[in-house]
């Protein structure tokens, strides 16, 4: 079945929200309004949205240090996110987490993770619950190409096969782990092939094409929902900016960056759906205006919000101690 017009709008809204949110994070960071460091998802929007599009709040995802896009795609509130990223009261994690630890259990978002390779084992656990409780739900582990070389990730792949759990490994190969190309750090000819050799179906997907990601994810999801076990996707995409905000990425020549920008998933989606007369520019422009206003509002509110109360420093360590 094709996606409905409402679905297409939802997809565009989600991708455009990520785009707007991340551009704004980049800007607010430069202005000194965001403490610490942040890794933005610019250029990878079709991946997160394609993967999360058909997930419910009862399906889980485990994310990475580059997690804002996954959060938005999974339905986290951008107001709560911006508050969190700015370290303010009312943030999704009360200001205690920050950019690299945004989580929202009510949305099935098990947390960004500042440890590369941290999420895959946890996602296997979330998938195990689904198997044991026979919910038909799945758990997705997002990992980068860099994370695909971490021992914990490999263990999770094997464990998922052995336990037969509905875990979906979404490897976002954006070409780089920090400042090192995946062509150097991944010794294998292909991440998908490597995952396949662990005993699960795996495919390579064009991560700049929302539809390609969504369809591949559909196959993974079908298998997961049917209780047939794990699946892996190698989603090939581009990181438009540096590893973290402020990375000058002198190691990438202008041509490489231009080429990445030339394959921008958002205009590509727009072109696709307008040319097919599924949506028209007015539909999409309206979404854009709404999103821009929402993000603007989120920033304004986050800027105005107070810091967390100092009394919260020692709360939330334990349920009870």
């Amino acid at each position, binding site marked *: 079945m094709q996606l409905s017009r409402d679905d297409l709008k939802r997809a565009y809204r989600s991708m455009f929200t990520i785009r707007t949110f991340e551009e704004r994070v980049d800007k607010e960071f430069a202005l000194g309004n965001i403490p610490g460091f942040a890794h933005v998802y610019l250029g990878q929007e079709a991946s997160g949205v394609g993967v999360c599009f058909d997930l419910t709040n009862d399906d*889980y995802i*485990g994310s990475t240090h580059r997690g804002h896009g996954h959060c938005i795609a999974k339905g986290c509130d951008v107001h709560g996110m911006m508050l969190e990223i700015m370290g303010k009261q009312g*943030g*999704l*994690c*009360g*200001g*205690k*987490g920050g950019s690299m*630890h945004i*989580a*929202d*259990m009510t949305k099935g978002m*098990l*947390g960004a*993770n500042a*440890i590369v390779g*941290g999420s*895959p*084992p*946890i*996602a*296997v*656990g*979330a*998938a*195990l*619950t*689904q198997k*044991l*409780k026979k919910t038909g739900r799945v*758990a997705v582990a997002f990992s980068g190409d860099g994370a695909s070389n971490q*021992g*914990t990730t490999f*263990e*999770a792949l*094997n*464990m998922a096969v*052995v*336990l037969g759990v509905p875990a979906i490994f979404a490897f976002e190969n954006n070409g780089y782990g920090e400042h090192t190309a995946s062509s150097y750090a991944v010794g294998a000819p292909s991440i998908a092939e490597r995952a396949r050799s662990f005993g699960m179906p795996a495919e390579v997907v064009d991560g700049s094409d929302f539809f390609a990601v969504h369809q591949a994810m559909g196959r993974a999801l079908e298998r997961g929902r049917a209780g047939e076990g794990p699946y892996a996707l190698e989603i090939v995409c581009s990181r438009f900016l540096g590893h973290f905000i402020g990375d000058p990425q002198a190691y990438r020549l202008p041509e490489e960056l231009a080429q990445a920008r030339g394959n921008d998933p958002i205009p590509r989606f727009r072109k696709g759906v307008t040319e097919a007369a599924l949506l028209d520019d007015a539909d999409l422009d309206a979404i854009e205006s709404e999103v821009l206003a929402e993000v603007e509002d989120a920033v304004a509110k986050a800027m105005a919000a107070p810091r967390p109360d100092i009394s919260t420093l020692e*709360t*939330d*360590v*334990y*349920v*009870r*101690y």
Partner: protein
Amino acid sequence: MSKKTYGQAINEALRGEMLRDPNVIIIGEDVAGGHGASGEPGGVGGVFGMTAGLYKEFGPERVLDTPISESAIIGAASGAAVTGMRPVAEIMFVDFVGVCFDQIYNQAAKFRYMFGGKAKTPMVIRTAIGAGFRGGAQHSQTLHPLFTMVPGLKVVIPSNAYDAKGLLISAIRDDDPVIFMESKVLYGQSMEVPDEAYRIPFGEANVVREGKDLTFVAFGAMVPRALAVAQTLAAEGISCEVIDPRTTSPLDEDTILESVAKTGRLVIIDESPPRCSLAADVGAMVADKGFRSLKAPIKAVTCPHTPVPFAPNLEDEYMPNPRRIEEAARAVLGYR
């Protein structure tokens, strides 16, 4: 009530909790055993037999054998815990935590705080600890300090069968991640243990023996050793109080401080190398909060700052032994 070993008490606690709550599952290496072999699976029940019989009773959905992948075991447990299960994961020997420590201290233990109180991670990690088993440098460590220092984790170290059962039940019903450290040398020790379920709360020390001249604080398998020395000294009219904190995180500071307020003298017996140990932790706590009561230096009897040696005579000397405990006690008692 009947005589049970420390090991049987653990097995009974696991079984009881599994009967009570369908969300309790067991996951680890060979916790069932025999999968994929020509014979029947389920006949092993862990290398120490602590999960014996559970696979046959509860089946493959409750007792899960895994590959040798400790990070994935802990991750599977914590991921299952935050999504509604109550997993009891087994790390066969505590020495193996180095391959999965991130999943413990950076992940499971930090979820709740990092997520602003919005996650609950009710999981237990059971693991075998301690020297005296001739296991060599990588199968004989205790490592409770490693866990005690981690905010978000609770650390349990039972010294006898009765406590083992009650503390394990509390651990499984607890809503925070708990590491439950089982002394290998105690597995075979037996005593009267009730058949029904009961809980021992965390953070409540057990005053194993009352005394007025000197306080011993000892952990896990060191408790019987402290008691033995207390008995020796009693023959000379020296009265030692022996405190078993039972959990190192939370730690029952009050009971220790009250005892030192009475005795003025403290010797801590801790089976681990000395640096940043529980001995140091308790000693420093008393040197702050109990300073006024102190009549003598606080002494610790620990292992030396070396890995655990293999040769039996070296290992026996490595562990805090009665001779060294007695020496420390006499030094403190004789202090002028």
